[in-house]
């Protein structure tokens, strides 16, 4: 009788190329990943970014300082507040403008609300990637409440363009404060429900625990920040590492998890929502009276030089570097976006993974494609 032999020993060593995207639902936008597959296993992954590149940095070089403001909410459309914050922060730092403290508190409140809404989208979409439809609807129910609050305050649901050099556009009213307080109260039990429904679910845990290990070393190598590096056990948070605005006055913990797997990053984001609620509550209690705009010249002229400002966006460190030659128009605006670093490690991390696990890992990176391409 002929002896049976494993197929791979005799057959050709074949691999094939699999295009993940640019129109794949799991990439959440137009991102293409060229996978070289060995059966079910990823042998190699090449990231092809740039499908939604809009030249934001270049656009900054042909408009006035104020005219660049709307651009900042269109880089990462899910956490637009923090992006605008970094830009106005950089210009304020350059011109020596000190926004009134009421404005700073309003910025913190709206930024943290924005962070929760952004994490909720990630939470729903991640579970959708893993095959659970219902959590997305629950997440959007709560997110809708935040968007309604922010819409009543700023006039827009995503592209807020609410911060100005020296403050914020309009003051908050009692409705907003009462609404935010009500939301914080309602959202705590909802978060508990999310935990019971998903975090402890055995099917979910089997899909994410010990999957997609990204340790602190790899994060450092690729410049991954935010929940990525915190999910690898490093308590790096711009709000604490390079304190800005009124964050030093507020009491909150930097959520970390030593697991470094998809579950670790998941837990960090869930904890961050909890901490954001704490921040919002404290900021509402301490909200001082007074103006929301400092006295600023009608036409902003930034003194010549280079200035930086970083904020902790929902996905990690966002930094704006501006170069001015003292003219009405910026010489250079450089945007350091978190998703670019977070994605670039995919190539190394995905090697040797099963395709389905690769998707489970990619979801835990929380990618926003316009943020990568900007």
């Amino acid at each position, binding site marked *: 009788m002929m002896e049976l032999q494993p197929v791979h020993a005799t057959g050709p060593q074949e691999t094939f190329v699999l295009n993940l995207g640019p129109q794949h639902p799991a990439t959440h936008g137009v991102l293409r990943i060229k996978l070289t597959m060995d059966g079910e296993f990823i042998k190699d992954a090449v990231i092809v970014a740039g499908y939604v590149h809009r030249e934001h940095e270049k656009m900054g070089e042909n408009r006035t300082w104020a*005219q660049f403001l709307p651009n900042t909410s269109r880089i990462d459309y899910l956490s637009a507040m923090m992006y605008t914050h970094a830009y106005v922060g950089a210009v304020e730092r350059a011109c020596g403008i000190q926004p009134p403290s009421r404005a700073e508190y309003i910025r913190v409140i709206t930024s943290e609300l924005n962070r929760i809404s952004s994490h909720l989208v990630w939470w729903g979409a991640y579970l959708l990637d893993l095959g659970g439809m219902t959590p997305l609807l629950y997440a959007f*129910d709560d997110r809708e409440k935040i968007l309604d609050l922010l819409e*009543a305050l700023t*006039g827009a649901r995503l592209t807020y363009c609410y911060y100005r050099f020296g403050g914020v556009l309009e003051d908050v009213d009692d409705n907003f404060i009462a609404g935010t307080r009500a939301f914080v109260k309602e959202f705590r039990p909802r978060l508990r429900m999310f935990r019971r*429904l998903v975090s*402890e*679910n055995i099917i979910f845990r089997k899909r994410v625990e010990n999957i997609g290990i990204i340790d602190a070393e790899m994060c450092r190598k690729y410049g991954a920040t935010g929940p990525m590096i915190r999910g690898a056990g490093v308590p790096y948070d711009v709000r604490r590492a390079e304190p800005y605005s009124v964050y030093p006055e507020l009491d909150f913990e930097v959520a970390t998890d030593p697991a470094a797997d998809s579950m670790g990053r998941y837990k960090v984001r869930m904890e961050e929502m909890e901490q954001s609620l704490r921040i919002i509550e404290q900021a509402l209690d301490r909200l001082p009276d007074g103006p929301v705009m400092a006295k600023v010249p009608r036409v902003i002229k930034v003194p010549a030089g280079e200035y930086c400002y970083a904020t902790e966006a929902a996905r990690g460190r966002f930094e704006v570097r501006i170069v001015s030659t003292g003219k009405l128009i910026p010489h250079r605006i450089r945007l350091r976006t978190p998703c670019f670093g977070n994605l670039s490690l995919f190539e190394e991390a995905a090697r040797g993974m099963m395709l389905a696990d690769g998707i489970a890992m990619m979801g835990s990176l929380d990618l926003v494609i316009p943020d990568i391409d900007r």
Partner: protein
Amino acid sequence: MNNIFKDVAGGFISLMIGMGITLKEFFRKPVTVHYPRESLKMTPRYRSHIIFTPDEDGASKCIACNMCVNACPSQCIYVEGEKKEGARKKSVTKYELNFTTCSLCGACVEVCPTDAIDFSKRYNLASPDKERFRRMDLCKDLEERNRKK
């Protein structure tokens, strides 16, 4: 063997919790609005495309100063004006908004010295004809609104 039992039991508990939550949600009030049979009212600060805010006589307050044109980051406003006989200031004769490139940033509304423009609350905008949005005539829009009044 032991593990299989543990998995099955764990899966069963997860399933029961999930079903319990689903059942509870099932009896909650709906959170959506039955569009288009009902629709939400936009908030006062809602930003849709700009329109003229008329003075008491229903005329535009715009003095064709071109400040909004210069403030706009997307160059989507075009204004023409003339000085009428005996009038102190210029008045607007043509105001065109290219809504296809407008980013609804509000720079124009903020900068206007006479508060002549404000955001409308129109959000159900749709047309098979792109020109309708490329050349939105604000003067004509104001006339139409005055006629309807």
